[in-house]
């Protein structure tokens, strides 16, 4: 009896043995290899060779964003301060948190404030996600602005990057508009009167002032129609437009020879 127990591995041992082989089994499976293309760091037998370093970018979706190689000075944090990349990252973070918020929000004057209040008090992580959305929005305005200043001081708007600078100014405007349209949505006193001040100013546009105000407010004064209008602008239209301009912006960065040279 003693010998048989020694020959037969216990359940724990067998489990341990199969667990040891699991990474190899998974990494060798067809499903795994169909997801990660050759050269991926998640593939079996990845080694740190120049060829694989190239493949990591070339054989992944990253190739849409980055070339295989970049100028050495371009990876210096002290040159770019990561501001452009962080602006993009904040946009992604804002999209993720924003989608979460959309599940709990109805853009009507009767329900908007209550929904936000319930989100903060009754939804798991609701308050945290709303906080993150709010602070990320302010941070994005700041980082886009600082990115513009950085680019200006490096003279990076000069040929051949003139047009990308123009795109960048458009992106700054869109960022401000995105932030401003989101400002109204909580439908509290802060939102209402901040937007009242802002739209009153736009009402002074020469010639078309009243029309501009009417279009922005969806009426002669702020109300439920304004809320649905700004909601659609905030969650759909402006993000759509800014994504298109971002695509052009990033594409131009590469086409114009990567980020601007060392000073």
């Amino acid at each position, binding site marked *: 009896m003693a010998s048989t127990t020694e020959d037969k591995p216990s359940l724990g041992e067998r489990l341990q043995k199969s667990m040891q082989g699991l990474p190899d089994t998974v990494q060798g499976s067809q499903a795994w290899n169909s997801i990660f293309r050759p050269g991926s*760091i998640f593939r079996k037998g990845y080694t740190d060779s*120049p060829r694989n*370093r*190239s493949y990591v*970018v070339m054989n992944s979706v*990253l190739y849409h964003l980055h*070339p*295989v190689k*970049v*100028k*050495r000075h*371009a*990876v210096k*944090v002290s040159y770019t301060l*990561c501001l452009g*990349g*962080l602006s993009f*990252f904040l946009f992604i*973070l804002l999209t993720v948190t924003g989608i979460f918020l959309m599940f709990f929000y109805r853009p009507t004057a009767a329900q908007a*404030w209550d929904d*936000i209040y319930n989100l*903060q008090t009754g939804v798991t992580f609701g*308050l945290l996600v*709303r*906080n*993150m*959305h*709010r*602070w990320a929005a*302010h*941070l994005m305005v700041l980082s886009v602005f600082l990115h513009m200043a950085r680019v*200006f*001081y*490096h*003279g990076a*708007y*000069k*040929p051949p990057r003139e047009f990308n*600078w*123009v795109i960048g100014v458009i992106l700054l*405007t869109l960022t*401000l508009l995105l*932030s401003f349209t989101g*400002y109204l949505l909580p*439908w*509290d*006193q802060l939102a*209402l*009167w*901040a937007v009242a*001040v*802002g739209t*009153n*100013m*736009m009402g*002074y*546009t*020469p010639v078309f002032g009243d029309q501009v105000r009417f279009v922005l407010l969806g009426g002669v004064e*702020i109300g439920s129609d304004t809320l649905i209008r700004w909601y659609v602008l905030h969650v759909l239209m402006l993000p759509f437009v800014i994504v298109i301009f971002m695509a052009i912006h990033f594409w131009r960065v590469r086409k114009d020879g990567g980020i601007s040279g060392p*000073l």
Partner: protein
Amino acid sequence: MTEIPEHLRKRAEEARKKAEAESAPAGDAAGAEQTPEQSEAESRIPAHLLERSKAAKAKAAGGDAAAASGGGGGTAVATAPAAAAAVADGGPLPTGPGGHTQRLLTVVKAGSIQDVRATPLDKVHTWPHLLVVEFVAALAVTAFLLFFSIFVNAPLLELANFNETPNPSKAPWYFLGLQELLTMFHPMVAGVTIPGMGMFALMLAPYTDRNPSNKPTDRKYVISLMTMFLMFWAVLVIIGSFFRGPGFNFVFPWNAGLFFEL
């Protein structure tokens, strides 16, 4: 008329003159009738190279002939007579003026025609050098936002009420510079004209700044202009945010308190 590079035209003229000077004593343009031996002597191709190419040609021809006649063992006996025979038979006839099959027309140096701007760049692999930096930066910002959001709550004031105007009512902080301008100018100027012109001027920056240098020392004027522009806005935003109290009157935050919500 197509443009011929200056140096090429000069070289062609020199060559033409030289050719005329050489053919004049001979009486006529008899270059084609010269014997191969004569022209070989005049050739610019160094003698040892010419010798080598001849030998190679002979060997190749000889090898072919031997392979055709004797099979596999023939290559070793590709001797001079066979080679000579092969040349006499069907080798390429030296038809050019120097006795060669090709003639060198001109040598175009790459540097004079191509604009070689691409000096070798000091480059590194995106993975891991750039991607790691980006990943760490993204993580750091996420961590910062997460901690900040845990401790600082976004404002949610009481329900919007049209009958109760808060005093002061302020725009979002990034528009407070404009609201500050409202205290000085007509609303059309402060709210539309100045920001509109500002954005337009900003967009035109690359087209109005014709200075090609990106060195800070060459750009003192533009840099000081932009710095003044940015400082102007920053100061306006700071005044509008912290130094404006009830009725949008100027107050000191350390006396009157803060009238600012993010």
